[in-house]
């Protein structure tokens, strides 16, 4: 095994250790250590990704001295490395762009705790992406739950505390259902590692024994992950949690935390149960229906919003619908398109949240349309980023979102009745997306009459992060084919 195969393990360990180390230092050093560690994970994951693109293969990495069914294990191929890279990238730049606001919003005594949470959150996301063990996944889901609630709570005011409470209750419900499903899997297969569990499940399915528990397991996993990633009708916590938290938290929560669970679900569908069994047990159809509803309801709710961050949060609900639509189609092309949309949304939504934060801080930290009018003239960089992010979310060509919608609709072809529903939902949702994003653009780009424009001074780190986000978004919009190739190869190796 080449030395490079140690990198995912190093990523998990150094982010975890970074969290532990951060508890001993002051706020300034917390930021520095955090930045260094996340940059290191970006380099490690990026190197691994380059290596795996050149030579597509997967590695099974024993955590300890005992092989597969006895010890813990992580397993990774190009897809996992790609997701790991995206996660480190997005976390790094969300934190850099949101640094000023973190130091303003979070109480001084809590800033280093905030960074502890970020480190542990990232480590749990890496573990969810890389793990090959169901129980390890559950343990890291727990860390993820607590840390995600804590970064919402960090901006301690009434609204965020109430939002955290909602989020915590829903999230714990999701964790509980996930734990139940793992217990059931262990009860009927006696395995916790994904590959041996898959073998056992295939055998059970062929012999026809334990059909009911198997169906229940799938239902529980789907519902648990749907709650965790705010699929309609479990989306009620999302707008409050993401809308009221500090900008960097919102960016990380909607960009990454929701995605970690979806990747886990894709891994369970493909690697543990097997796609054909999932399709035969009809679990994907439930996800499909909820996804279609999410796409429309999320957009309608976003149109009704008067608060820019909550509007973006409801847009996340709709975008989660797109991702679940890909999963719900129940074919490989759909899963690949879903993975692509995960990446698109992961790099676009943090940009939108950060730019909304920038626009709001140029408008006396008010986030309703009345105060945001003309914000583009006060903070042009944020406005440009917001424009590009919106166009990308609507799905205009040359921006990242276009490729995702294109591949989603391509994946829906040849699916019979599902094709018509999916295409109709995509069309309606796109129009609704355009409706609320164009409204937002029109508001921020229209001048107040007789207003003297005071230019808001962005910090250098904010400007740097926004420029990087813009470049990456346009680059992904122009060159989506290589990324799709990596995902396609990775998906083939995932099984």
């Amino acid at each position: 095994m080449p030395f490079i195969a140690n990198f995912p393990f190093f990523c998990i360990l150094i982010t975890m250790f970074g969290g532990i180390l951060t508890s001993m230092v002051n706020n300034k050093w917390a930021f520095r250590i955090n930045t260094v560690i996340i940059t290191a994970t970006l380099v490690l994951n990026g190197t691994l990704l380059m290596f795996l693109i050149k030579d597509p293969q997967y590695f099974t990495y024993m955590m300890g001295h005992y092989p597969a069914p006895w010890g813990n294990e992580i397993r990774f191929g190009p897809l996992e490395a790609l997701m790991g890279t995206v996660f480190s990238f997005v976390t790094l730049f969300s934190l850099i762009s949101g640094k000023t606001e973190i130091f303003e919003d979070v109480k001084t005594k809590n800033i280093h705790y905030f960074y502890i949470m970020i480190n542990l959150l990232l480590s749990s996301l890496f573990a969810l992406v890389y793990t090959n063990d169901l129980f390890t996944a559950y343990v890291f889901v727990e860390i993820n739950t607590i840390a995600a609630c804590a970064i919402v709570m960090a901006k301690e005011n009434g609204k965020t505390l109430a939002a955290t409470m909602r989020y915590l209750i829903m999230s714990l419900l999701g964790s509980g259902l996930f734990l139940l499903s793992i217990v059931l899997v262990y009860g009927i297969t006696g395995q916790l590692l994904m590959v041996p569990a898959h073998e056992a499940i295939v055998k059970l399915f062929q012999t026809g024994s334990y059909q009911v528990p198997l169906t229940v397991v799938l239902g529980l996993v789907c519902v648990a992950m749907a709650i965790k990633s705010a699929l309609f009708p479990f989306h009620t916590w999302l707008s409050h949690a993401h809308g009221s938290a500090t900008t960097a938290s919102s960016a990380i929560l909607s960009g990454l935390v929701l995605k970690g669970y979806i990747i886990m679900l894709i891994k369970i569908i493909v690697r543990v149960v097997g796609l054909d069994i999932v399709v035969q047990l009809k679990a994907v159809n439930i996800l499909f229906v909820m996804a279609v509803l999410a796409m429309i309801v999320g957009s309608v709710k976003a149109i009704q919003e008067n608060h820019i961050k909550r509007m973006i949060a409801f847009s996340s609900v709709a975008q989660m619908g797109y991702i679940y639509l890909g999963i719900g189609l129940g074919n490989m092309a759909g899963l690949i398109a879903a993975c692509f949309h995960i990446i698109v949304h992961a790099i676009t939504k943090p940009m939108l949240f950060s730019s909304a934060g920038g626009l709001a801080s140029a408008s006396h930290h008010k986030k309703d349309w009345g105060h945001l009018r003309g914000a583009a003239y006060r903070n042009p960089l944020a406005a440009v980023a917001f424009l590009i992010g919106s166009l990308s979310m609507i799905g205009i060509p040359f921006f990242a979102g276009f490729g995702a919608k294109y591949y989603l609709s391509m994946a829906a072809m040849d699916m019979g009745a599902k094709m018509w529903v999916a295409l109709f939902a995509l069309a309606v949702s796109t129009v609704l997306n355009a409706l609320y994003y164009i409204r937002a653009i029109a508001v921020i780009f229209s001048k107040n009459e007789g207003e003297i424009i005071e230019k808001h001074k962005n910090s250098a780190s904010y400007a740097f992060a926004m420029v990087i986000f813009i470049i990456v978004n346009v680059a992904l919009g122009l060159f989506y084919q290589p990324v799709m190739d990596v995902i396609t190869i990775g998906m083939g190796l995932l099984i």
Partner: protein
Amino acid sequence: MKNNRFVSALVRFMDGEVSFEPKAKEEEIRRESTHKEKTVAERYYKWYEKSGYQTFKSAYIVAAVLIASIIIGALLLTVSYLPPYGEYANPVNNEVTERYIEKGMEETGAVNIVAGVILDYRAFDTFGESCVLFVASCSVMMLMKKGKKGKTEEMLENYNPKRDPVLKSLAKVLVPFNLMLGIYVVLNGHLSPGGGFSGGAIMGASLILFSSAFGYRKVRPILTEKVIKIVTFVSLTFYAVAKGYSFFTGANHLHSIINPGTPGRIISAGLILPLNIAVGFVVTMTMYSFYALFTKEEI
């Protein structure tokens, strides 16, 4: 020019100046006085004010109970389809448990198979679990701890127990034994049932008993926030470094200097004993800090 007017009209529409929302109340009253006919929206609004809210609330409760009972029923039904408890032919009795039971002692050096499984075979999960405790105690600190200008000594005095002779004399007897039991459970985690989590919980409980019987002043000289931080930090760092080494050597098939030793001895079972101690410290500190933070918002 024309274009500009269009944009501003669009903005005005989008801004909600022209909206489809139910009108505000004054407007509604004014409307009512001029037009006797009520629109559907107004009727709905009025009904909602009058009795709709209560109706929705009760419907919500009924629906919640209904959905919960359906889910409970479905899950109970699933249980009846599961393999019967304790049968030899159950799927859980496979090669995995077989190796744990038959070779566990030889491979890990731990007489207590559970300790062998959680701290050697599946040590990565346990590392995650101790980090769950860490992240939980950090979030409680974040939420509950007041700033530096927290409480004065007199205010803290209020949290001290009133003179309670029963509690005090019982605690005098119980605390030393409890602490001893906790330490025993941690140190013998690889030999007998127990280990870091359970021993740590016992030690934490005895610290809580001590603190509630004799007051915070007696605890403060030994257990301050700094001490708790340092102990947690050192324990978790030790866990990360030791297990990191073990994972690294295991995955790369390198020779590891850790050997199981003679099963049954107190110094045996490789890393399990030190890891148990580390986990024990983390659990003790977490339990005590939870108690302190939830009672007086300070450690």
